[in-house]
């Protein structure tokens, strides 16, 4: 077993102090009776329940956490504003180029951060005690707001707005997982699309499935994306509500490639009908060039060929040509 875990167990056994309370215990020693146990207010006791409803933090009377504070805590829980050096202390070892790293966000770490944030603006023992007492409740409120942060960031929701719908409860009690992708992929495909599923079973989510159809049939399979952001031109951060079993990373749909097929012979274009089934193949007419290099397509002739190959010979327009030239976006599956 790990050295740290052993030491921790010993320390817990001898001192009776929870590790999370240790620094506070020291700072509070001035004001607290030595005999009285310090950590006693985290649990709501029955005799305290007669107070007002915002007293859920137990013996320490608190006032309700303002909406902005709760939202800020939720934002920081989703690693907004957290310097990257705190996340990845050793870039070369932990996040080399062309790597994908999965993680879960440590709740204890975030509780410590919450505690520090609530101490902002005052270092008196009273603030420290209040911050410590309010921490469990604040963390609880912040976890409940996790699903709202993205909408607020996108300007679709106002913090504490009037008539605001209640936030969707996070699944898995606020467990947030995610990945960091450091790769040239992020640079080249900045609008990369991401889907996360709770099941890697091909029976649940077939590899070539239409995500909208799967989502309509089994909404429980979709893992909510809490954050998807490029931290810098080659670093992508994604956070999920809960733990996905399978991920799809797809080429951005606004920039799906236009392509032709070429297997040694002349380039061909596969014609598809609207559901996407192959109906025909036409050879791509190339322009005869005299001085420029090869590869220039005779677009007008290609449009005509497509028109002639379709059943009722509807003239091919820009959208029709684009539809035939589109290739299915690449999709990479992880997990499962």
């Amino acid at each position, binding site marked *: 077993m790990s050295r740290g875990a052993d030491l921790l167990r010993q320390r817990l056994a001898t001192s009776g102090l929870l590790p999370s309370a240790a620094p506070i215990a020291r700072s509070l020693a001035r004001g607290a009776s030595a005999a009285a146990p310090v950590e006693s207010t985290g649990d709501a006791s029955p005799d*305290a329940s007669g107070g007002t409803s915002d007293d859920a933090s137990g013996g320490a009377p608190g006032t309700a956490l303002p909406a902005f504070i709760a939202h800020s805590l939720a934002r920081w829980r989703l690693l907004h504003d957290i310097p990257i050096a705190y996340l990845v202390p050793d870039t070369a070892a932990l996040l080399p180029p062309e790597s994908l*790293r999965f993680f879960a966000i440590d709740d204890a*770490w975030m509780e*410590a951060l919450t505690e520090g944030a609530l101490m902002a603006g005052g270092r008196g023992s009273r603030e420290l005690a209040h911050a410590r007492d309010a921490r469990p409740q604040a963390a609880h409120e912040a976890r409940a707001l996790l699903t709202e942060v993205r909408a607020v960031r996108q300007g679709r929701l106002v913090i504490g707005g009037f008539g605001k719908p209640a936030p969707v409860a996070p699944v898995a009690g606020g467990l947030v997982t995610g990945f960091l992708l450091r790769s040239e992929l992020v640079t080249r*495909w900045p609008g990369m699309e991401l889907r996360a599923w709770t099941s890697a079973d091909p029976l649940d989510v077939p590899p070539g499935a239409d995500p909208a159809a799967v989502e309509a049939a089994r909404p429980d399979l979709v893992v909510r994306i809490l954050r998807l952001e490029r931290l810098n031109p080659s670093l992508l951060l994604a956070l999920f509500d809960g733990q996905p079993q399978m991920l799809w990373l797809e080429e951005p749909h606004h920039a799906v490639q236009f392509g032709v097929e070429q297997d040694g012979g002349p380039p061909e274009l596969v014609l598809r009908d609207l559901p996407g089934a192959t109906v025909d193949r036409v050879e791509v007419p190339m322009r005869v060039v005299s001085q420029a290099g090869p590869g220039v397509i005779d677009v007008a002739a290609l449009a005509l060929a497509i028109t002639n190959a379709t059943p009722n010979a509807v003239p*091919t327009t820009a959208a029709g040509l684009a539809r035939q030239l589109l290739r299915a976006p690449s999709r990479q599956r992880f997990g499962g």
Partner: protein
Amino acid sequence: MSDMPAVGSIRLYDEARPSLPAGDYVLESALAIEQGGGPLDAPPAHRMFFSVQAPLLRLEPGDVADCHPAPQARGSFANQLPHAVLGRRSLPWERSGPGGIPWLALLVVAQGEGLVEAGTVAGLPQPVRAALGAPDTAPATLLRCTSGQVLYDLLPERAEVPLLTHVRQVNLRDSTLAGADDDGWFAVVTANRQPLYTGEGTAYTACLVSLQARDDLWLLDRNAPAPALLVLHAWSFVSTATGGTFEDMMRALSVQGFALPLAAADPAAPAPVDAAGCVPLQRRDRHGEPHDVHYRGPLRGLGEQPFSVEEADISRASAVELGRLLGNADARFLREVVVWHRAAEARERGLVNIKRLTEALKPLLGEGPIRPVRPRALARAGPGAGQPAAMSASTSAISGAGTPTAISMFINASTTTTTRAVAGALSQHIAARLAGDLPRARLWQRPEEGGPE
């Protein structure tokens, strides 16, 4: 928003013409007032000038949402047509090419076929300069093909230009663009050329050129030098035999959990993280002495790991300090948290916390039962009692024998404004509360109203 296509679907449109193309306009308005068939005096006609603007000499970085192949990319792009994705769907129609075609076309120029260079508007042919209306000294990027024949070979026919430009709508909910410009509408300008690989990595430059007032391009003298083209956006890439596609790069990724101890590829190299997921760091104390410490961030690839309580583990201290810094850095957060602390303190001053008192009194009273006392001059509870008498129930400085008197002493010692008499009454009240099953109560008490004992 309601008209979004489903996630994963694409809608294609031929064009999106703005109702007014770019240019200067005059809006004339006048009133005609009549009565019984005869005109009456009307206010003079009103003229209003306005101009509809569109990019002229270059596209701003925000106008181009995406380029494919990506700038500076290397890969086997031979089977793909390069294209530029524009963030505003009407952009290709905001100005007009000859005969109403879009004013944008994408030319793919191989190395040696032409040169993209920085110049000024003066490098363009005279009729084009006149139509653009920009000063000759305005900087502009120009494409000069090596000969008229090369330009003739590469340029799409006039009828082909509209075919190569279309509008598409996608759903950006699950992409990194969500939240920014995410209406899902884009205009796509496609090139008419495959960037074929012709050995040794062929370098191509894709140039989004302006066709505004360029009737001359389709009446070229192929033996004369090619006229310069105005380049609005350009990027270059290299076509190779293999690799470089989305699938290739995805397959080449190293995939694993974050900060796993196994991360070191070379077993001889020191592990970057220890078994608890911590990274060794150096810290200097106030005397400049270096110390070996370790730290782990909020991301864990392992299972649940409690914080280590070793002196050398700075993880928890870092988290608390970072939280404090973040809180202090956000003015609104700081303001609200201070107000929140003050409210809590004001509340606590007016509240006797029975649970804490019990805890605090344990060393005084022992575990024995507390004698219930019927409160006589009971402090009145309720919000109407005015200013609270600042009674704090902090758990400090307890000494003396375990009697109600001691409780009153304690309360007296820990407050500044409460009289001894009030404290005496309170002590009995508190004792009653301790013994009974009454809920925790607010005790508001004016000194002059307290019944002296």
